[in-house]
Structures are given as structure tokens and as C-alpha cells.
């Protein structure tokens, strides 16, 4: 089924999404990969705040190529989500409701998704040029020194994803 979903979204929206739904996302998402996740969990361990309020937010696991002059961003497709499995449950417990990536997740992430009513979307891996056209703004909001791995805030429009794991335990893989 095709749907349009506005990001950020709360748990009730997650509950309405089912594995297999083809979804177009509109709104804002945050971008973070391995290095940024590691730093975020280190900040939490040190008793500090995250660089953004994570409640109801969606994190896109992605590290773009550099933008050419006049472009918002370079190529911008998903990276393998399982590398974030070590960090994701803690962030889901803090209220994160969405994840965008590609590939399988661990049991600990599945459990955290059910517990917190979160949704995992897959974007098509290796379609970074096409996906970049659905990104209308991009701004680095933290960890600029990480280069391609910095935390960004993106505005997206008609961004195509598929629900691969829903908060009811459904999984497409």
C-alpha cells in the first residue's frame, strides 16, 4: 500500500504502519552513521545532552558525498543499518520513532522497536543520486569534524522508502 507520512511522527503513526507499506516521507529527519552514534552514546554516558531532541525523530543512516556548487547535497543513499544495532536500542528508549537504512537488524533492535513503537524503513541502497533529488535542504548540526559522518538535519519531500520492520514484529526480509 502507498502512503504519505510526515516526519517527525509519534507512536500512533508508527502503529498504523505495516511491513510492506510503500511510503513517501515528507518533513525533517536527522542523519547519523557509526561515528556519530558512538559519540551520541558517549555523551549520554557522560551525562550530557544529545545534539538534538530525539523524541519522535527519525534518523537516516547515511553519509553523503560532497555537494557540488549550487546543490543541496551529493549522492545520499542509505548505509547498512546493522552497524548501528549496538546503539539504536538506547536511542529508541529515549523516544526515537523512525530509522531509515538498509539490511537486517538484530533481535535487540526488534525488541526495542516493539517496546517503543518504532518503525524501520529501507531506502533503496545504491540509489543515492535519485534519493538526493528528494532532499530540499541539508544542514550540519553537530560533529562537523566527522566530515561525511557529521550529524545533519535534512528536509525531505516525497522521499521513497519501504517499511521493512514494523512495531508489531512484522518483517519483510
Amino acid at each position, binding site marked *: 500500500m502507498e502512503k504519505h507520512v510526515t516526519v517527525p511522527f509519534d507512536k500512533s503513526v508508527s502503529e498504523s504502519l505495516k511491513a510492506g507499506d510503500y511510503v513517501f516521507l515528507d518533513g525533517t529527519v536527522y542523519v547519523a552513521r557509526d561515528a556519530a552514534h558512538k559519540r551520541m552514546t558517549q555523551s549520554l554516558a557522560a551525562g550530557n545532552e544529545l545534539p538534538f531532541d530525539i523524541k519522535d525523530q527519525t534518523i537516516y543512516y547515511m553519509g553523503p558525498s560532497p555537494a557540488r556548487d549550487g546543490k543541496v547535497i551529493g549522492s545520499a543513499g542509505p548505509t547498512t543499518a546493522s552497524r548501528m544495532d549496538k546503539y539504536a536500542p538506547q536511542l529508541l528508549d529515549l523516544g526515537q520513532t523512525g530509522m531509515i537504512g538498509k539490511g537486517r537488524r538484530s533481535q535487540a533492535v526488534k525488541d526495542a522497536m516493539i517496546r517503543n513503537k518504532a518503525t524501520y524503513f529501507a531506502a533503496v541502497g545504491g540509489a*543515492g543520486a535519485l534519493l538526493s533529488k528528494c532532499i530540499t535542504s541539508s544542514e550540519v548540526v553537530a560533529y562537523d569534524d566527522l*566530515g561525511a559522518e557529521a550529524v545533519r538535519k535534512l528536509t525531505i519531500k516525497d522521499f521513497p522508502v519501504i517499511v521493512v520492520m514494523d512495531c508489531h514484529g512484522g518483517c519483510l526480509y
Partner: protein
Amino acid sequence: MREIPVESITEAVSEMCIKVCHELSDDMRTCLFDAYEKETSDIGKKILGQLKDNLAIAKEEMIPICQDTGMAVIFMKVGQDVHLTGGDITDAVNEGVRRGYREGFLRKSVVADPIERVNTKDNTPAVIHYEIVPGDKVGITLAPKGFGSENMSRVFMLKPADGIEGVKASILEAVRDAGPNACPPMVVGVGIGGTFEKCALLAKEALTRPAGEHSPIGYVKDLEEEMLDAINELDIGPAGLGGKCTAFAVNINTYPTHIAGLPVAVNICCHVNRHISVEI
């Protein structure tokens, strides 16, 4: 002795980096277009359609096909009658990578140390494999490798008694485990024989052989065809969401080995199987 200034190698490598990350070779494009026509799963067809559009956008607007523009793997075949002048050949190759990744707006994905993990910010060093060959030419093959699929690659040290059935089981195990993580449809490079490191190198080099071109060895060609069919029966499908097309090609290279061993390496590549060659 033919003299070749290393600067010409820098220039060639730099141009190759930019081209290969924006435009797939004809063999890979043909695979994708054929798969789109043949795919019977709705979601699979939709995904292959997105990948076709992605290729067109990448080429027209000079946006890399995939944001993971890889670690640069380079095969250098240097003729023994060549005298390289004007500097260190390895520095020259790395300078080409540095320039290409900067001028092509390609992602810098290399960290200087595997544990300390500080980005080198210019995508160097490349992984360079040198071979001395007869002649007075320098052949350069560049294959930037993304790590979504690299991480799913495997080496199996089989026993001779495992035989060809063991090889088949290893290939299928690697592909099944790779599943959606390796951005299918994949290209599967296989190395059989040699030693622990030689079979990995054979598998890597197999990925640079054009899809659809088979091994000249009869049983190996048959194995390539049989494995491609078997992989496409796994129903992993485009993006791992089910469908007929899980792999575009299985390319197998072999080498003599020890009486006690049967090494097998399976190097998985995604549909963005970038390879480009020039001869100077």
C-alpha cells in the same frame, strides 16, 4: 625501454575515479536493464526502475551513482620494458586518487588506522596490486569498492574432500548471509585455489571481468552458470525484498593450489559494480 612519466598515471587514475563513480560500464547497465524487463515481483520491478532512473540522474547531473564511492582498489599491470620516470609510482597513483576524489566531489571514506579511525580526508591510500607483465605498457584497472557488500565477503578454507559441492555450498552461504545488506542485485566474484590471500585476490579480480563474459575453463563456466541460477532461486531479490533477480553475474577465477587445500573466497559486490580499465 619505454619511458612513461608517472604524472601520466596520476592523470589517468584521477579521470578514471570520476568517470567510474558516475557512469556504470555497459555490461552492468545491460544487466540492470535486462533484469528490469524480466523481474516478476512488483516491488522488485519498482526497485529496479528506481535504479535505472538513478543511473540516468547520476550521469546527467554528475551526482555519484552511490554515495559510498568506495575505497579505491587498483590493479597495475606494469610491462617489464617500461621505465617509470619522474617520481614514486605508488605516490603517483595515490595522487590520482586524491585529485579524482576531490575534483569529482566523491566521498572520502578512508580512515588512517583501523582502530583509531581518523579520516584521511582525501580517500587515500588506495589498495594497489602490482603485477609485472611482459611488454612496454602499463595497464590500470580501477574498481572502487563499497563496504556494504565488502563486509559480507568471505574466505572458506575447505578440505580437498569437500570438492565442487563444498564450493557451491560456500558460495550460496555467503550470498544468503549477505542478503539485503549487500544491495542486491549483486555481482559475485569467486576465487578458488591458490593460498589464503591468493584466493581473495582472485575473487576481487573476478569482479572486474565484464558481466556475461565467462571463464575459458569448461567446468568453471558451467559452475558460473549453475551458481547464477541457484542464487536467483533464493528469492532475495532487488534490495532484498524478494524477486527473481538476486545476482547479475557470478565470475569465478581459479589457480593451482596445495595438495592439502581448497581455498575459496567469495567477494560480494553490489549492483554498483564499478570497474574501468585503461592502457598507457
